[in-house]
């Protein structure tokens, strides 16, 4: 079924050597039901079709269903086993899918009382994820802004935020981006005083009236200029990618550009508009058939858009002309 890393069918077309570390692509969005799992399943499928070795990880331990979208009906072993220390080797949880080059780590069978791993286990998990034998590791994140979700989102620099063109989704997406940025920032700051101000700013109703990262930057600079410099560096390196899912109109397409502008002007960091996917009745059919849309209807509009987003992601991996990713 799926190939082992660095061998035969796992090679991108052209057969050049594979990257040593996988490219981590966590996919979040804050709100449930915006199509994160659908996007992950199809981007993973598209990248696998392009010849990359791909692992799709279901990071939603409380509502796992990536396995269903990828045609794996009853996963044997899952991330929950790793969280509960029943399995220490993440590689042993890799499951083949019906799609060549694409493997899955499911998230079924979790402990509802303590679904998320504690901090230490999370650190181990993130380290193990980076060691997975693949070119791309896509992580389907759960809804909300739980610290675990934020940590998964920051596992790489290529976090994708899925937004549907609805007020509720847009609102939650900003909350998600804000939470991700502040969490990254707090980890980057060294000074105890500055970290305390960052923590204060994370409370939207804070008494100092800090509303945006740019407000916070002013405070941090006043406290410590070196920390101010680190702040700016963190801001520059935070570059989430936006996918608008379920567009029906030209205005919906423009939403991605508008979100990008607001991230820049209001929050002070650059978001990239990675692409959009149109609303398509075929999506429901693909979920019902428990296969990615790209496998069921590769020529429909939504599949074309998804393939385009995947191509963009792969392009950002600085793919060599022969199709081999380099790092």
């Amino acid at each position, binding site marked *: 079924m799926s190939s082992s890393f660095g061998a035969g069918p796992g090679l991108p077309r052209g057969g050049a050597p594979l990257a040593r570390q996988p490219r981590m692509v966590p996919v979040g969005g804050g709100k449930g039901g915006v199509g994160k799992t659908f996007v992950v399943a199809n981007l993973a499928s598209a990248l696998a079709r392009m010849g990359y070795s791909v692992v799709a990880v279901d990071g939603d331990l409380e509502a796992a269903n990536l396995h269903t979208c990828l045609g794996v009906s009853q996963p044997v072993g899952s991330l929950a086993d790793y969280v509960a220390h029943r399995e220490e080797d993440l590689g042993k949880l890799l499951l083949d899918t019906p799609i060549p080059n694409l493997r899955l780590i499911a998230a079924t069978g979790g402990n509802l009382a303590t679904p998320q791993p504690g901090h230490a286990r999370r650190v181990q998990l993130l380290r193990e994820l980076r060691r997975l034998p693949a070119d791309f590791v896509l992580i389907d994140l759960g809804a909300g802004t739980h610290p675990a979700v934020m940590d998964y989102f920051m596992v790489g620099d290529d976090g994708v935020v899925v937004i549907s*063109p*609805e*007020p509720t989704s*847009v*609102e939650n997406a*900003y909350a998600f981006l804000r939470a991700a940025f502040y969490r990254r920032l707090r980890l980057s700051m060294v000074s105890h005083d500055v970290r305390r101000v960052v923590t204060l700013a994370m409370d939207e109703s804070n008494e100092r009236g800090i509303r945006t990262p*740019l407000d916070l930057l002013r405070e941090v600079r006043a406290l410590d200029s070196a920390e101010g410099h680190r702040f*700016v560096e963190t*801001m*520059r390196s935070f570059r989430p990618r936006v996918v608008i899912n379920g*567009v029906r*109109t*030209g*205005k919906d*397409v*423009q*939403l991605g*550009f*508008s*979100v990008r*502008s*607001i991230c*820049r*002007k*209001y929050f*002070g*960091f*650059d978001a990239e*508009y*990675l*692409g*959009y996917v*149109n609303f398509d009745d075929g999506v429901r059919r693909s979920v019902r058939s428990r296969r990615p849309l790209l496998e069921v209807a590769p020529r*429909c*509009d939504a599949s*074309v*858009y998804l393939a*385009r*987003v995947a*191509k*963009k992601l792969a392009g950002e991996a600085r793919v060599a002309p022969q199709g081999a990713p380099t790092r």
Partner: protein
Amino acid sequence: MKPLSEQDHYEVLEVARDASGKTVERAYRLARATYDDDSLAGYSVLRDTDSAAIRERIETAFRVLAEAESRRAYDASLRADEPDAEPALPPEDQVQTVLDMEAPPAETGIEPFEELGEEPGGDFDGPRLRRSRMRRGLELDDVARVTKVNPTYLRFLEEERFEELPARVYVRGFVTLYAGCVGLEAKLVAEDYMRRFDAQRSGSGRRGAPS
């Protein structure tokens, strides 16, 4: 990242210093929509006072950059402030165009989604026409306004409802106009599309001209 108060007019409109007049205008229209009080993208994070302040900067920036002479003077002042920078000026007539034109709806669309590149080859069929339209952020009514073609026929073109379209000569005209409006090579598109149309309708009777 600079706060808004420190951004120059190009940064406010998020365009390059050598942006053409059309690009400046498109950026302005997008910014105006983004920072409108009812904007889907902004309403949940921006207070009315935030939006108003940003809108004011956007209006000022556009007023300066849309007019050739004021843009030249502004660029000169930027160069004086940044001796190392060499902003490229667009041709004067390009900037002047913005002042003179009453932009047709096609021009109000966003830039095509070039960041993702064109989709790979293949026939220019109905779905591909639709995708090209979406890529410019245009609605069917926008295309109808520019082409003067009934939006119902435009929708039939996209959906390839060949039997419901009028006679061949009209369809070819519609396709040519549609393609031009969404920035495609009209001749190429018409050839592709009519090949599919002919294959589908070969042997069937013709319908009358649109009323």
